[in-house]
């Protein structure tokens, strides 16, 4: 997980135009993110290549070319001055390669592409978000390279305190940085079969205000949290719509919600994020225990 100092950062390179975006974006974050070592990883997807590419000599040539390409991409950016390593693997499943490196190198943050228009299914990013225990930063190719407006999503779960602390720290480290927080409220319609919409909204408002003041008291936070109603939308859509309306550059959220039942899985909101378009980078916080210590 991201700490104040000396973070190990892993960047997923897929040899598409996205790679340069990730490199440039991370360079823009150097003011707020202290980096110990960078790892650039590309896994050669052998299963998608014909047999003539799998000959040892050709493979080693491919590896060499991949490394050269990444080095070129680093040439003119601030990242080049930081200690880094370029890794080219040939694991059968790319997620295994990432998992191994993340564990072995004690990676704090993994940076992944969140393709909006570029070709690619985005399936690997989704898998890695589920699998890895490091924090995840999803970067769309349409992102604003110098983030200024940061949005924290507070759901009063165990991640919320870290969302707040990190958001505030980031915004202070960026010139003209601004941090704001929202809580997305959604009514469980099945409980209110006999009620009209205004009654449901009133109940929801009361419940949200109670949770909000309890949470603010518990963590002694004096900030303001705006409540956004999801109405018929999925919570993920509501967050992204808010981010788009207010031109947010980065969204920070916990990987799971506050519902104890869904804690067994990756959160529904995180999962849903991948299916919607966004121009904001999304920072998904995963491990909370270390932070509490």
């Amino acid at each position, binding site marked *: 997980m991201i700490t104040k100092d000396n973070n190990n950062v892993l960047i997923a390179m897929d*040899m*598409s*135009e996205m790679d340069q975006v990730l490199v440039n974006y991370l360079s823009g974050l150097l003011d707020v993110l202290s980096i110990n070592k960078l790892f650039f990883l590309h896994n*050669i*997807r052998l299963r*998608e*290549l*014909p047999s003539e*590419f799998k000959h040892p000599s*050709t493979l080693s*040539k*491919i590896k060499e*070319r*991949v490394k*050269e*390409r990444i080095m*070129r*991409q680093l040439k003119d950016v601030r990242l080049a001055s930081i200690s880094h390593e370029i890794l080219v693997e040939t694991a059968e499943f790319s997620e295994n390669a990432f998992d191994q490196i993340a564990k072995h190198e004690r990676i704090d943050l993994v940076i992944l592409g969140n393709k909006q228009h570029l*070709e690619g299914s985005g399936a690997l990013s989704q898998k890695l978000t589920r699998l890895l225990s490091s924090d995840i930063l999803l970067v769309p190719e349409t992102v604003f390279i110098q983030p200024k407006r940061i949005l924290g999503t507070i759901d009063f779960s165990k991640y919320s305190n870290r969302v707040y602390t990190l958001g505030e720290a980031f915004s202070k480290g960026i010139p003209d940085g601004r941090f704001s927080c929202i809580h997305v409220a959604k009514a*469980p*319609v*099945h*409980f*209110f*079969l*006999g*009620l*009209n919409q205004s*009654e449901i909204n009133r*109940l929801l408002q009361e419940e949200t205000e109670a949770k909000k003041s309890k949470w603010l008291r518990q963590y002694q936070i004096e900030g303001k949290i705006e409540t956004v109603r999801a109405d*018929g*939308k*999925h919570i*993920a*859509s509501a967050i992204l719509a808010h981010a788009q309306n207010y031109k947010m550059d980065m969204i920070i959220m916990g990987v799971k919600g506050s519902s104890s*039942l*869904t804690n067994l*899985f990756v959160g*529904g909101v995180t999962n*849903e994020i991948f*299916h919607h378009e966004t121009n904001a980078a999304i920072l998904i916080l995963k491990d909370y225990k270390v932070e509490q210590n």
Partner: protein
Amino acid sequence: MVKKSILNFKINPPVFYCTIGFVFLSILLCLIFKDSVDEWFTRTQYIITDNLGWFFIITVNTILGFCLYLAFSKFGNIRLGGEEAEPEFSTVSWFAMLFSAGMGIGIMFFSVAEPVSHFANPPREVLDSSRKAIQAMEYTSLHWGLHAWAIYSIVGLALAFFSFNHGLPLTFRSLFYPFLGEKIHGWWGHAIDIFSAIATLFGLSTSLGLGVQQMNAGLHYLFDWNMAISTQGILIFVVTSIATLSVVSGLDKGVKLLSNGNMVLAFLLMLLIFCLGPTLSILKSFVQNVGTYLANLVEISTWNDAYQESGWQNKWTVFYWAWWIAWSPFVGSFIARISKGRTIKEFVLGVLLIPALLTLLWMTIFGGTALHMILHGDLSMITAVNDNISTALFVFLQKIPLTAILSTIAVCLVAFFFITSSDSGSLVVDNITSGGKEHTPALQRVFWAFLQGGIAIVLLWGGGLNALQTAVIIAGLPFAMIILLMCYSLLKGLSEAHRKQLKKQRLHQEKSYKEIVQGLLDSNDPIHDRE
């Protein structure tokens, strides 16, 4: 079409008045011919089931087959609400809501009585006791398993598809749009809505009638109250009043509390019986029951008593099929409302499997425990069921430790199920008879709640369980035909949607990974970007 009339009611006049007219006429005939009404119910039930039992059986089997076809066909990937729609509830919450839809008064009333009754009066003659018990659970599983949920699933699916994907109002006439076209706005549409409103009213009234009989039985066991129609009438009135109180006075938290309370109490009761009863035997029999049910599904679901003609099937299987069909507008509307954003495959498999498995678990825990007692020599359960089916649960609870606590939970649970069924049921009938208008006055829903209660009282008074069963079978018959037509209509609608989907699919030339790697190898300039 929607007009305001007396008391500012927002109604669709032809549907509203015809439904009320039919209901009042039925009640009036019951009151006028009070002496002969019981006999009339028995005779009518006999005529319909004896002559048209095969039709109900073929209908439900067709529906189950159709559901499975849709799930695994080319339509399986069509998303309810369009390609961009997203599920409003997470899968876990959706499952929880489907569970709650599966819980109802029926599982309280029949879970002990039905397997015991099938054991005592087997549908098909078998000599061995253990074989009798297996058969009893097999038929109970048939009645409460996949077929019931297939009916709800197909009605819910059709409602969701035409409402979310075609933007039509969430009423039954919408389901016939591909079939009837603009005629759905005329008398054809009115007729369909009238049939669905009547089916819902009688289906609900039957459940309320069963529920109140059982509440009375519980209170008789707990506090020695009289078992009489008058007591049941008062109970219906009191519980309906409590149910409507929440809507009128805005005690909205009550509805939430009851919905949660229902689930918690039901699981608590099930867990207590599971722990206090023969736990190991329950676990073993659940596995076996599910297995034998699935293995013999085709045989038992098409068994038509053709060579024996014992009349058993009319009393049980045909009644259940008609009951589920009459309930389908109610449960279907609820399922449709919570399922936007699901694919057809997800929808059908979720609605078929999850609640069916839970209901079978419930039936095994209650019925299986009762059968376990009988097989170990305690035959008093058979006498209790033969004596009065509504008291069977409480006789059963007397044989389990913590009887007083369990009986109190059971009575509360029946009352809670009664209240939530009455509340949600009146909302569904109100929705149909108002032409899908959302913000109808609370008094309008109260009116339907009391009318349902009224029907239940009259039916109980007219002929008890027999009358309730006949009313459901009469109401279910026309609606069974409507559901079959609806399947055809749904198929037409889905084919159209599938064709549109294919047309919209863009020929997307993906740049393959192979091409990227080939580019790297070919180029001397590693930073070369390939378009």
